[in-house]
């Protein structure tokens, strides 16, 4: 219905934070001479340990906190130049725990800002219903109250409410921190999908570096005392951390995490060690002579069932119940090298199973082959100046 077919209305705008300091009356400095250029139509993540001033920085953009020094420019205009409520209505605001109005129905929660802007009730509500669809909420929830929704659904309502008046900017303050990991992943994927459609300027605060790397087009790592430690695309952050602090913050497995930015498309998948469940002993024997110590057995539709030893399979016939589990497969080409490596590590045979989009076995690949692909990808990364092509086509300018 509604929004999908329509042309995009309001795109994100550039936000320039220019040498901004926030000093509290007691002398505490929350943010210290911070300069950042937040690119338009992309997600910029502010990440850091607690007390690093990331939330203060976010709240200075909609003037929930007034800076002590410095200026913030929104689309080239000083944010101090317009009335504070006008400014805030041009920015969606999403907080932890969603902050829904519990006395209002879901549809009226979402319609809040349009109503404040003077829209009629019916127009605001139909806009709200359109947004429910956009954020993946069932229309039957419209007349419910917040207490009837799960944490994840409430957070979706929070995002829909922030988007209701189609603001160019979306400010998100640890929006997904309070939900469980499975729901969080769903919300993150949904945000990326929505951003793909809408092209807003999103400023996203989190303390979770994985979330930052996953969502950010650009990631600003901040350190205690309100200093900017590094501002870079996530792949560059992982390959070239600016200093020890950033390296520590990224964690011990940043090498593994970096693999998320390399596609599994280049892997050489072997199809020889795959047999169907109804294969004859001769077929099994013929397949079992290849490089793989095990054979992957699939059902008649090509979906993987499990691993078996060639000699045993040939001798005893294929008994699906006795096969070794094949673990979680990766989707060839779509998933990253990190997912492929994970599959191989988790597989009892040390071989990862690649499937196509329909879940049919597309091939198998050994840990060794994945290792070679990783070395190849790193070499290519170095030639490209340390960044991978996946996400680095945006502004990488660092000021201050």
């Amino acid at each position: 219905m509604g929004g999908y077919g329509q042309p995009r209305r309001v795109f994100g705008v550039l936000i320039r934070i220019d040498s901004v300091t926030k000093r509290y009356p007691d002398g505490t400095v929350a943010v210290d001479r911070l300069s950042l250029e937040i690119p338009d139509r992309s997600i910029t993540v502010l990440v850091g340990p607690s007390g690093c001033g990331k939330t203060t920085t976010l709240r200075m953009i909609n003037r929930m906190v007034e800076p002590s020094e410095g200026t913030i420019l929104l689309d080239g205009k000083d944010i101090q130049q317009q009335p504070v409520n006008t400014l805030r209505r041009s920015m969606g605001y999403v907080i932890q725990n969603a902050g829904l109005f519990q006395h209002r129905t879901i549809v009226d929660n979402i319609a809040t800002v349009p109503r404040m802007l003077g829209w009629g009730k019916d127009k605001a509500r139909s806009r709200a219903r359109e947004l429910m669809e956009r954020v993946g909420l069932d229309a039957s929830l419209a007349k419910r109250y917040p207490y009837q929704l799960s944490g994840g659904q409430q957070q979706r309502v929070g995002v829909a409410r922030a988007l209701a008046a189609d603001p160019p900017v979306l400010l998100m303050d640890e929006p997904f921190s309070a939900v469980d990991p499975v729901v969080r992943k769903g919300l993150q994927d949904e945000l990326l999908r929505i951003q793909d459609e809408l092209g807003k300027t999103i400023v996203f605060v989190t303390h979770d570096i994985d979330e930052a790397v996953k969502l950010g087009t650009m990631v600003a790592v901040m350190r205690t005392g309100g200093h900017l430690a590094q501002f870079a695309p996530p792949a560059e952050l992982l390959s070239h951390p600016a200093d020890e602090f950033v390296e520590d913050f990224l964690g011990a497995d940043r090498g593994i995490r970096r693999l998320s930015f390399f596609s599994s498309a280049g892997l050489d998948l072997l199809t020889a060690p795959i047999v169907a469940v109804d294969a004859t002993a001769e077929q099994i024997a013929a397949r079992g002579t290849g490089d793989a110590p095990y054979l992957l057995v699939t059902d008649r539709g090509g979906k993987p069932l499990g691993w078996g030893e060639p000699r045993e399979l040939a001798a005893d016939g294929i008994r699906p119940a006795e096969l070794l589990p094949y673990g979680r497969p990766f989707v060839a080409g779509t998933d990253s090298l990190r997912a492929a490596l994970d599959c191989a590590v988790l597989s009892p045979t040390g071989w990862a199973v690649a499937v196509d989009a329909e879940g049919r076995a597309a091939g198998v690949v050994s840990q060794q082959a994945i290792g070679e692909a990783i070395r190849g990808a790193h070499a290519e990364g170095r030639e490209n100046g340390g960044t991978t092509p996946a996400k680095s086509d945006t502004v990488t300018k660092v000021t201050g």
Partner: protein
Amino acid sequence: MNVLNFINAFFSDSAHWKGYDGIPTRLWEHIWYSLLALAIAAGIGLPIGLLTGHTGRGGNALAMIATAARALPSFGLLVLMFIGLGLGLLPVMIPLVILAVPPILVTTYEAVRSVDPSPVDAARGMGMHESRVLLQVELPVALPLILSGLRSAAIQIVSTATIAAYVSLGGLGRYIVDGLYQRDYEKVVGGATLVAVMALATLGVFWIANRVAVSPGVRRSN
């Protein structure tokens, strides 16, 4: 003779249902004094409670004044007002209002303070005016507690409004004061029963107000 006999005798006497000293007249007088006192007390307690609760300032001073006001004996105050102001409605209203303001003020303050801060933060962040934040975000959520403050104030007013009879005013206290004076215990018990019934009716009114005014989203989530 027991209390039930008194009650039966009082209410079955048709003389008690007519004239300026009849039950309908006294009941309406009582309701009128109570409503007036409650309206004045709410007029003072609600705005101050809402504002102090919203801003978070003045909470300590408020608690102190409220405690002090609660310690004042209503009857003593009535006598004092009577000496100072003479007969009339005003010396009755002052002790009743002083009795009713503290529960309204303190619960309203507490009710607004205890509203979850995150919807308030969200409302400000989306550019809502402060007055609307108070009236459209905090008030609806604080309403059940505010109503409970009004309810206890109303019940105290209804039972204490009987003292109006001491300064020659009407109301249900008339039966109690006159009955005691005339040693007509039928009247005393009848008057006391009516006051008790009115207190129960007040509870009923507030139960209905809670049903009508509080959003199902708030009622069910608490």
